[in-house]
């Protein structure tokens, strides 16, 4: 099962401090739903406030972003710019 790391502390209030989660999801969309099922409210937080970095590449607002068992999957705060 893929391992998802939640970067920073923005989601700890949903996960009771857990920052590493094993999931069955293999797409960002499925991940959002799975996280929300496990930790109500987290899915919305992740969908609206986080980007997903898969093997170092950052995807923002991309339901279709996919990952596998061996992928490095990190949820990080969304990035803007000036």
């Amino acid at each position, binding site marked *: 099962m893929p391992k998802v790391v939640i970067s*920073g502390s923005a989601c700890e209030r949903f996960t009771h401090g857990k920052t590493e989660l094993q999931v069955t999801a293999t797409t960002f969309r499925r991940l959002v739903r799975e996280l929300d099922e496990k930790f109500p409210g987290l899915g919305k937080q992740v969908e609206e406030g986080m980007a997903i*970095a898969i*093997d*170092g590449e*950052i995807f923002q607002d991309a339901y279709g972003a996919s990952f596998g068992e061996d992928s490095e999957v990190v949820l990080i705060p969304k*990035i*803007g*710019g*000036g």
Partner: protein
Amino acid sequence: MNYVDSKLKVVGTRPVRPDGVEKVTGRAQFGADMRVAGMIWGKVLRSPHAHARILSIDTSKAEKLPGVKAVVTSKDFPHIANEEAFVGEGPMNFRDLSRNCLAWDKALYEGHAVAAVAATSQSICDEALRLIDVKYEVLPHVIDVEDAMQPDAPVLHDDLFTSGVKPAPDKPSNIAKKLTFQKGDIEAGFKQADVVVEGYYTTKPVHQGYIEPHACVCSYNADGQVNIWSSSQGHFMVRAYCAKLLGIDISNIRATALEIGGGFGGKTLVYLEPVAIALSKKAGRPVKMQMTREEVFRASGPTSGSTISVKFGAKKDGTIVAAQQVLKYQAGAFPGSPIGPGCMCGFAMYDIPNIDVVGYDVVSNRPKVAAYRAPGAPMSSFAVESALDDLARKLGKDPIELREQNGAHDGTKTHYGPTHQNIGFLATLKAAKQHPHYKSALKPGQGRGVACGFWFNIGGESSAGCHIAEDGTVVATSGNPDIGGSRASIGMMVAEVLGVPAEKVRTIIPDTSSIGFSFLTGGSRVTFATGMAATQAAERTVEELKKRAAMIWEISPEAVEWKDGKAYPAGSNAGAFEPLDLAALAMKAGRTGGPIGAEVSINAQGAGPGFGCHICDVEVDHETGGVKILRYTAVQDVGRAIHPSYVEGQVQGGAAQGIGWALNEEYIYDANGKMDNAGFLDYRCPVASDLPMIEAVLVEVPNPRHPFGARGVGEVPIVPPMAAVGNAIRDATGLRLTDLPMSPPHVRAALDAAAPKMAAE
């Protein structure tokens, strides 16, 4: 298709800039140039107090003044719930955005808008503003970030409770959020260290300093349709924010992007447009509003002031084993400083096993901050890169070699989680070290500093088009206002794909009703993301052109080859036909299926991060404390420079702004929380005579996720200058200055304070 390894004819060249003639002849239409029939003027009444409860607003006298057509206050705006959404350059709370456009129950900073009028002349507006009677209860205020965090500080918002702390607080405070990022074991890391350096740094809030003040014309028509003409970093952003704040269907708003005289992140919000629409709705006339320079300073978003403590631990051989940072950023009147990227950027350039970063987002009685080039990163890197310089000195190492030894590379895991891939930091450092500037000799009394910078860069939703005109010339369309040359870069990418000269492609920015949605122009994303959409549109157009040629020749489209702007039979088996160019195919477009072109809307991913390394030489006048920049070189990995002149301009501009941040720029407040220097005479941006020619050195490590290898360019160059200048001053004087700006009074004071110690040595 990927063109990174292709021999390119247009990309990488320097055609004449397409917006140049209109701008140098003064004909380009900026926000303040816009006029429409029947237009009247709007102006804003602003709070004279840094923090005050609004007891009442009596507009009756103003409404009776002849020539006044409308007066609005926040009561004319729908009530919006307190809910955060990520729709712009950072988390956006539309309740706060509404309260920032027109104050609700409290004025939260000097200059906060409390009411607005529309009248037939600007002088009548001024008179009407004087007739509005606002009763205030003045409250204690707080400006400084550390002061605002104290338990007894005046609290701005009764409903603001710090998130990210345990246990959850039961009292409101000015600390909106605490963030933490950790990697490895920080305590174990410092135990391994032979050498430790640490420092405490402060930065003042600075403004983006765009030369063009905010301006707009808005028309609320009798049928409920709205037109907006404004200068912004995203006309789709303006449309969406106005719709949300005023409860209007997005489809009923048509926003047109005018030329923009600089934004740098500061025009990723709305200030005037919603107010102008509300005034226009009441007045039944189009309303024009424009800020004065003073209003720009007092009421539009600067970036955060900050305090940052930083600590490094290293082995004797220079290997950094631990790094720690605590960052406190002013958000201004509402939560939402760039503390997140501040926490993430400082150490992102280095391969360090143990990292601990804590950040705080803090409100105070100042204008709500807006994005400013690489939001949050410059302050963080000022502290990190200054401390690294101290570490290099303590270890007796060359500062670039220390960075090379610990520099991030492909496979380096960052402290915020992802592992870097396809990055050019080491190539950038190598180019800096080999540059003649770095090897040149300094004269006595001069000093040299080096510092680096990082920014993620982003992609996002973008729309672009490619249309073949009836004569075979090409119109490219972009959903993004052009701030830094994107019309040129997009046109060049389209020209490259079509195989025609850049001059044959004219790029325009359609209004929001004439092209698909595009996220705003920010985050150095347009040449990357909208350029990707434009490239795909051009590729689809080429496919269509091949089909049309195939129809004319009565052969299969697969038997047609596109080369140098013409369709050719792909080999002798395809038949012997004269090539068809764009003009020939356009002339027969009606007979072969209709107009030829394509529009593509995408959500671009794969933006490659950018890295820079700056070298700065200074001379310090010990009499005045003045710092003269003698030579400045900015090296940056840009992926692939589509139009190198624009890219160099971005690098030079960012460096110049960073030097201003380093040496002079700051908001100065009096004891009542009022800004004392709201004008360019007293708020000292660097001018041409203050700076040498900044040499931009472009390193090209292509981004494999962009068809031409482009990376974002505009954010990175503002990150290194503050530390580069500070490190140069350290080299010249022996003094480590930890507070920005390093302006003459501050430098002179530091020299005076150090004089007895230096004399004793």
